[in-house]
């Protein structure tokens, strides 16, 4: 399989800077998600890797070799487009077999690989249909099959699940993950849905305004965001400004909190403390002595079926707590929030 490397890649459209500067290193066989708000340059990044767009500056390397002179046709990449881009005048089987037939493979081999691929994506029953006669999820699977059948060494998918309903989306996610692991293809996956990115990816690249904001495992991106922007984008609700009074003590409006020390941060620095809403332990009785707990009062309650989100008023501050909907605590009840120091994460300002 292929290792992909972007080094100091920049892309300008006329005077408009779409990608400022991006360094990205995708290991062979890895599944990486590009995550970011609309217009941050995700599609542009994919198009440059595919060779559809030329970087204004920087270098793209496959297995260490610069590919800027390699035309699209010869890069052996696969791309599933944001809007599928199926050939409207071809049936499902002709769409899927296209990549093999332009390579001039013998008919029998095309037929065999086509059968196998249609089996994998469960489209045997639809082989003679035209794209206009398919549902969104079926078109999506045709697009994936059409790409996978050519055995690309790098697979790119541009928000392939954006147009699907929730149930189909989950099914397709697991399907893509299984396929990717089965074929071991280096995969770059674009999404602006953080849940999707976390479920699918080995590593997540968060992009803001054409710059790589953080590139890490889903868990670290979620729990240990490198900047306030990333924290907000990943849905963090409880972020409090404060000042470091010791390496593991931060003074905030919530009170003095014991926290995880962050390398390279000096005592006296102004920082932010992030508390994940589901990492807080909420009790209706005071916790045993020796725990770090603050007292508050429930101000609001939102029920989401599986989970409940409470707004807890602690002095002048509001803390959001999410827990399993096993119990329901009434608005107005007095509660204690048990905050484990390992769940207090510091973010540089």
């Amino acid at each position, binding site marked *: 399989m292929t290792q992909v490397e972007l080094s100091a890649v920049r892309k300008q459209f006329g005077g408009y800077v779409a990608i400022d500067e991006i360094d990205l290193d995708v290991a062979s066989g890895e599944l990486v998600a590009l995550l970011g708000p609309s217009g941050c340059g995700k599609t542009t990044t994919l198009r440059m890797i*595919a*060779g*559809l767009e030329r970087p204004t500056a920087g270098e793209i390397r496959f297995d260490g070799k610069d590919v800027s002179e390699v035309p*699209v*046709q010869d*890069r052996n*990449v*696969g*791309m599933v*487009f944001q*809007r599928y*881009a*199926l*050939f*409207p*005048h*071809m*049936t499902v089987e002709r769409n899927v077999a*296209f*990549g093999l037939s*332009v*390579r001039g493979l013998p008919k029998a081999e095309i037929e065999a690989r086509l059968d196998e691929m249609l089996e994998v994506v469960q489209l045997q029953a639809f082989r003679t249909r*035209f794209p*206009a*006669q398919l549902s969104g999820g079926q078109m999506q699977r045709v697009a994936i099959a*059409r*790409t996978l059948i*050519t055995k690309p060494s790098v697979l790119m998918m541009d928000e392939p699940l954006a147009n699907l309903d929730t149930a189909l989306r989950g099914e397709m996610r697991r399907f893509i993950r299984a396929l990717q692991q089965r074929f071991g293809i280096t995969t770059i996956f674009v999404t602006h849905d953080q849940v999707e990115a976390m479920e699918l990816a080995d590593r997540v690249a968060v992009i803001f305004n054409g710059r790589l904001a953080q590139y890490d495992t889903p868990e670290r991106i979620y729990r240990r965001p490198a900047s306030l922007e990333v924290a907000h984008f990943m849905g963090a609700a409880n972020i409090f400004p404060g000042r470091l009074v010791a390496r593991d003590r931060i003074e905030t409006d919530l009170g003095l909190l014991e926290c995880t020390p962050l390398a390279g941060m000096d005592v006296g620095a102004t920082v932010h403390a992030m508390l994940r809403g589901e990492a807080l332990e909420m009790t209706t009785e005071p916790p045993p002595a020796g725990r770090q707990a603050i007292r508050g009062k429930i101000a609001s309650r939102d029920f989401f079926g599986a989970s409940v989100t409470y707004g807890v008023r602690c002095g002048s501050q509001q803390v959001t707590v999410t827990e399993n909907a096993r119990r329901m605590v009434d608005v107005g009840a007095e509660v204690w929030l048990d905050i484990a120091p390992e769940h207090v994460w510091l973010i540089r300002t």
Partner: protein
Amino acid sequence: MTPATKTHPLTRRERRARILLFAQFVPIFAVLVILFGGALVMAVLQSLGFAPWFGVNTFPTLDYFAALWGSATFWTSLGLTLYYATVSTFLALVLGTLLALALVKTFRGKTFYKYLYKLPLMIPYTVGIALAVIMLGNGGMLSRLAAFFGVIDDPGQFLQILKTHYGWGIIAVYIWKQTPFITLAVYAVLLGIGRETEEAAAILGAGRRTIFFRVTLPQILPGIVSSTLICFAFNIGAFEAPFILGGGFPDTLPVVAWRYFNDSDYTLQLRGMATVVSIGIVSGVILFAYLAVYRTFERRMGRN
């Protein structure tokens, strides 16, 4: 009808609206039925020998068609007519499609070129014909230039472009006028289909030719068919260009018809009508066959 679904009688307002709608259609119907339909019926009747106002009434007879179709020059004329129409439509199609494909790309000065190529659309045919005479004729600009640069000794020796049965002048004028028209039609369709299917094909390993013939062409076919249909139908019936730039006897069919109509022997009018009806039949059959083939193709591509 069950009582439950009994409809209300029309209100006065609804009745007025209906009358108004009908009134809007009257002028169109009048033009279609009286002017066009009536003329068509008259032309067919005359070609079948009905012209009491000339003192001729042998209706119904196929004599005029027999006389016309029996002469070898008719078939030569038909051949010339079809040759000019087909070659110019085909060449305009190739050029127009290439131009449209170039126009969807981004390049410097694109806006300028997008205006420039439409210019011939706004200039009348007669002006185009005059330009052809000035440029391509013996004693025209090209021949003088050739003589000036010593390619030939005298402008009179210049390659005969106009007034030959090869019809290069006629074809040039048609192409000059119709290439922009086809470009316009194909360009609009190209914009509609977007670049993505072509890009997908490139990523799947297809080269430029394969992409054009297997991905782009089938998708722009509706634009190609409708625009070439219009051009071909026009070319088959066009009169000025072959009349002025053509090679003389035997002429194309529209010119032949014109000569009959202008003959001092007015009974030849009926043969003129037979010629006109023949043009109609030929172009009708060809265009119908063209559409039928296209429909089959469309159905194979899943459109209906």
